[in-house]
């Protein structure tokens, strides 16, 4: 299955040497594997490579976190240690948003949105670790007391 999904074209080093431009142009569109004896290299569009790396990175992260959650210790995580500051509902909300966002970015490839989501939750957990700050941020405030700059 990996070979099918990868859908590369196989060439040898002599073919690459004699028709370099042709193979480099082709590699922009789909991976070109170069076989030289036991050695195998691949030429791949950098954006495609970036997506493969990002997918691998975030998929590992999400799966590990889900495994941790499955173990039943909702507010403990090696992947996201800061969730200890979240309550059960917030942990659930984070988990749902993480999974939803991951599924979306697999399609859109906008990996930064996943990173932003995690950063937003880290900031939230940081705030929760400071009770005085929580109190200040949750206070309703009175517009009559507003101070204009």
């Amino acid at each position: 299955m990996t070979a099918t999904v990868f859908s590369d074209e196989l060439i040898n080093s002599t073919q690459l040497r004699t028709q370099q431009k042709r193979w480099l142009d082709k590699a922009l569109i789909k991976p070109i594997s170069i076989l030289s004896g036991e050695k195998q290299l691949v030429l791949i569009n950098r954006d495609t490579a970036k997506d493969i790396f990002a997918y691998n990175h975030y998929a590992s992260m999400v799966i590990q976190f889900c495994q941790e959650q499955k173990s039943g210790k909702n507010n403990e995580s090696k992947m996201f240690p800061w969730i200890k500051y979240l309550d059960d509902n917030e942990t659930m909300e984070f988990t749902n948003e993480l999974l939803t966002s991951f599924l979306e970015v697999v399609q859109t490839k906008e990996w930064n949105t996943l990173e932003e989501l995690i950063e937003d939750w880290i900031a939230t957990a940081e705030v929760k670790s400071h009770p005085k700050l929580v109190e200040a941020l949750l206070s309703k405030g009175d517009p009559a007391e507003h101070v204009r700059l």
Partner: protein
Amino acid sequence: MSDSKPTYEIVLESNKITKSWELLKSQFPEKMRDCELFLRKNPEDRSKALGLLKKLKGPFKGILQYDITKDDYRVWYAVDKKNNKVVIKYAGPHPD
């Protein structure tokens, strides 16, 4: 920045924040100038403050955090779109 965008007025939620706001301005004058400009023009637009803006979650939904420095100095605020105001709720390092 488009001129057609509304400009927000920045207000401190109460007089309790005045001291810490002024302290931040004296400690980080350039960064606070950038922060004020951002709050007046684009208080919710991440693309105008790359890596500096966080949108809080859970019970703090609607509150935003602007990082003045990489370490501990922050500004937390809410955007009142109806009245075109940015309300500063807390400014400074995390309280101990």
